[in-house]
């Protein structure tokens, strides 16, 4: 069959850059599934795009669907004929609906009995006719984070909300235009055609910026776009931006500091360029965090390390008159001047004196102000400090300073600096390092992927106390996340607590050995709220680990309890399981444990009596177990679960031989009981790390 290419460009007003990577993915998914549904599987599909255009290209698309034969089932045979054997209205109706006579219908046997049926041959439709429907479904199916009404409708007459208005559309199948129309109230309809548009402001010599140009193929579109100052290929756009940035880094003799993703910046532009800007040295007196927030969050500029300088990306390639550099510098200076004003002004008042002002900052309508929240957090943090062997007076001091920065001018202007500013003001006002760092980092980490983390032990404690209070107080007034509704981000708060408990050891070299259960008990009295919060935390804990470990490993460890042991302990057990996973001995042993579990399910084994062993293999297993037990016990006691499992795994040959040669359910009751006791002993040795019978062997998964 003849094949042609399908080329589709959706030209938009500027889409939000942060949507683009998701949109390209969704677009590809939708087009692929629509093509499959139409009977075009395995197509060569490319999707790319910038903030002003989304492009789809299918290199080879059959010119029509294959013809199809489908069986349509009608009424059951028993109601299809009357007593005289004549066709009933049900049968005649079914035949008529399908345009055939009842006599030509077939009878098919199904699970539910005999039915009338007919084979319907459907001729495959032409691709050029199918594409407009596909396009409409794809466009309607794109899941924008926020939709916009623009008084547009498609041919079905129904409203067509989209991310931003569509202003042009290229739609070609081979050399033909695929007809597609978007009607817009009060303006001309958008009709598909052969014409694309380039960069908003840049154009090749002799043509006007924004003028249309026609294309016949994907290759030509890409080529023409490049001529018209648009790089369609996202990775190429990134590379070009990176190159421009690297050039200026060399020129400045410095490097970008982390904070801004070049990938995001590459989505903001179609023709990347960059300019190097500087600001007066006096602003170096402002903390780096503040300067970088101005540059990164407010301007999408890249700060340079050590220097009062930055790189501002542009959408223009070059800066012929120096306007872009000058403009960027002016904006930055104005912002920094504001920030410096706030810094000086905020410093006039000690952070610790701001507590009463928190009365005016609402935490939640049912829970009062942040001042009230603080009254709960300080003693909670102190309790956790005492219980975990942290320095109570420092924790208490840090907790008493939390949130006071919410009423500073700086945080009013730059809300994303909350916490950090508190820490910086505390530092500048002479608080000890343990205290200011704790305040600085007490919001961290939020959620599962946040790379930030409390900077010290006191920070870990106040971070837990603050989040725990948020959860406990919200649950106590009935605010419980359900389904997709979690308006206060409580899931992320819970994940934050669990991550501090789990990761303090690897990140800060100390462990907080306290169980979630005990923590929850510090924040809530027994009752419904506590029960709900415990369920919630257990579910979050499972979630934390399910991202890092296989579900059966999580089941195996959680079978021993979850909230009632330190999170880091649960983590070490899972680490051990995951480390041994895949080793032949471990897999074999877990199979054996399934058997042991089944055998023991309704038995009550007693003590092992070595004298009662009959077979050599059972004695060998017993002796081997006795031999490794002291070592394994020592590892267990030290929390070295992997080593414990490894030493127990050396039992595998003995276990294998035992099952090969020994009949557990022996005729003789005392022999049988003794064998069961041995298996129980074996199970309990391993079972102190995890319930291995939960492990699903590789072959069964």
């Amino acid at each position, binding site marked *: 069959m003849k094949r042609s290419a399908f080329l589709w460009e959706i030209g938009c*007003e*500027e889409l*939000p*850059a*942060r949507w683009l990577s998701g949109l390209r993915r969704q677009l590809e998914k939708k087009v692929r599934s629509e093509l499959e549904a139409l009977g075009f599987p395995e197509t060569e599909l490319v999707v790319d795009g910038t903030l002003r255009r989304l492009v789809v290209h299918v290199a080879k698309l059959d010119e029509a669907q294959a013809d199809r034969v489908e069986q349509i089932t009608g009424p059951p045979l028993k109601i299809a004929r009357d007593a005289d054997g004549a066709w009933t209205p049900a049968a005649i109706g079914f035949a008529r609906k399908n345009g055939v006579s009842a006599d030509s219908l077939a009878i098919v046997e199904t699970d539910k009995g005999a039915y009338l049926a007919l084979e319907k041959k459907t001729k495959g439709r032409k691709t050029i006719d199918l594409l407009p429907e596909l396009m409409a479904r794809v466009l309607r199916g794109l899941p924008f984070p*926020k939709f*916009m*009404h*623009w*008084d547009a409708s498609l041919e079905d007459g129904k409203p067509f909300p989209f991310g*931003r*208005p569509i*202003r042009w559309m290229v739609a070609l199948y081979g050399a033909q235009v695929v007809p597609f129309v978007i009607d*817009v*109230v*009060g*303006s*001309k309809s*958008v009709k598909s055609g052969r014409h694309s548009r380039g960069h*908003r*402001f*840049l154009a090749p010599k002799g043509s006007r*910026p*924004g003028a249309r140009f026609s294309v016949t193929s994907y290759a030509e579109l890409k080529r023409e776009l490049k001529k018209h100052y648009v790089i369609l290929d996202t990775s190429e756009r990134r590379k070009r931006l990176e190159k421009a940035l690297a050039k200026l880094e060399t020129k400045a003799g410095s490097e970008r500091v982390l904070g801004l993703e070049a990938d995001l910046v590459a989505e*903001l532009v179609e023709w990347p360029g960059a300019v190097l800007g500087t600001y007066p040295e006096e602003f170096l007196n402002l903390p780096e965090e503040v300067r970088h927030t101005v540059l990164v969050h407010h*301007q999408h*500029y890249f700060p340079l390390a050590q220097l009062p300088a930055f790189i*501002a990306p*542009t*959408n*223009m390639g070059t*800066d*012929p*008159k120096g*306007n*872009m550099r*000058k*403009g*960027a510098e*002016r*904006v*930055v*200076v*104005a912002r920094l*001047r*504001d920030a410096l*004003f706030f810094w000086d002004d905020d410093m006039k008042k000690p952070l610790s004196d701001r507590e009463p002002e928190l009365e*005016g*900052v*609402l935490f939640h*309508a049912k829970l009062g*102000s942040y001042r009230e929240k603080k009254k709960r957090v300080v003693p909670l943090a102190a309790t956790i400090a005492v219980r975990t062997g942290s320095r109570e007076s420092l924790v208490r001091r840090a907790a008493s300073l939390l949130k006071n920065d919410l009423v500073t001018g700086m945080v009013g202007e730059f809300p994303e600096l909350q916490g950090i500013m508190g820490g910086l003001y505390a530092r500048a006002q002479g608080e000890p390092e343990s205290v200011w760092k704790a305040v600085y980092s007490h919001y961290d980490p939020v959620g599962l992927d946040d790379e930030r983390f409390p900077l010290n032990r006191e920070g870990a404690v106040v971070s837990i106390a603050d989040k725990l209070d948020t959860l406990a107080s919200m649950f106590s007034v009935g605010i419980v996340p359900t389904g997709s509704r979690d308006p206060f981000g409580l899931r992320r708060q819970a994940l934050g607590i669990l991550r501090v408990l789990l990761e303090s050891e690897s990140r800060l070299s100390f462990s907080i050995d306290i169980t979630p259960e005990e923590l929850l008990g510090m924040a809530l009295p027994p009752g419904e709220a506590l029960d709900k919060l415990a369920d919630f935390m257990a579910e979050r804990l499972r979630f934390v680990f399910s991202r890092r470990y296989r579900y059966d490993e999580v089941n195996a460890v959680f079978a021993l309890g979850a909230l009632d042991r330190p999170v880091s302990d649960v983590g070490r057990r899972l680490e051990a399981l995951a480390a041994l996973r895949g080793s032949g001995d471990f897999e074999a042993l877990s199979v054996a444990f399934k058997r042991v579990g089944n055998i023991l399910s309704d038995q009550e084994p007693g003590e092992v009596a070595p004298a009662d062993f009959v077979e050599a293999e059972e004695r060998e297993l017993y002796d081997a177990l006795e031999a490794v037990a002291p070592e394994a016990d020592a590892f267990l006691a030290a929390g070295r679960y992997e080593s414990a499992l490894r030493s127990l795994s050396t039992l595998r040959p003995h276990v294998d031989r035992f099952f090969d040669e020994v009949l557990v359910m022996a005729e003789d009751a005392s022999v049988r009981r003794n064998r069961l006791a041995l298996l129980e002993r074996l199970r309990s040795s391993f079972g102190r790390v995890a319930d291995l019978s939960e492990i699903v062997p590789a072959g069964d998964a």
Partner: protein
Amino acid sequence: MNFQKLIFTLTRFWSERGVVIHQPYDTEMGAGTMHPETFLRVLGPDPWRVAYVQPSRRPADGRYGDNPNRLYKHHQLQVILKPPPADIQDQYLDSLKACGIDPREHDIRFEEDNWESPTLGAWGIGWQVLLDGLEISQFTYFQQAGGIELSPISGEITYGLERLDMYLQNVDDVYDLEWAEGVSYREVRHRDEVEGSKFSFDEANVELTRAQFDQAKGESERLLAAGLVLPAYEQCLKCSHLFNTLDARGAVSVNERMAMILQVRDLACAVASAHTATLEEAS
């Protein structure tokens, strides 16, 4: 280009495109959006094209005339195109060209920035327009006003005149702007800023302002019941400004704050419904 020339240039530009040049509304307000020529005109089905300058008071933004960028009262040039033409962005860019900005020599961007006004029950989708990194305009496709879904939608362009002119005149301090030939922004406006800030931060009589708020609210409701939509809306605008004054004065507690915003919003939504009803009756 001095401040008044900028106003002339932009209003002329839009008047040449068939836009009605309206005048500022004579009641205090925080933004050009609150002018009835925007808030009420975007409701209902009839096309409308209008532009005007609106002095916009934001009591909490006052800085006693000391800050080079922040003002108690700044000027917005507001354009409403209902429905928005397909080339609305190009028309906007042409207006910048009319001000002497050659887009080939600058970096002009449309960056995502949606707009929402809780007190007006209004929101829209759009961008901030950045000129070499400086926000010079807000560009919004109105989706809802007074709690009512709009159809057709309106395109709203709001130029921050001081910002834009500071860029054009290459000055870093708003008071250094030339307003008219030989006359500075400072001469025209500085005292207004100093006294406006003193008034809203230090002097506004809290009890009186509170009482005025309650009175204006009651009056708005009464007028609405009497079928006088525009006068009712004026009283709603007064409430909004009185609330802003109380807020700047530090006289609004947290719980009260939300409640007051909701009261103004309720008024605005009631006005919008009543106005929509009169439009339907008329048609």
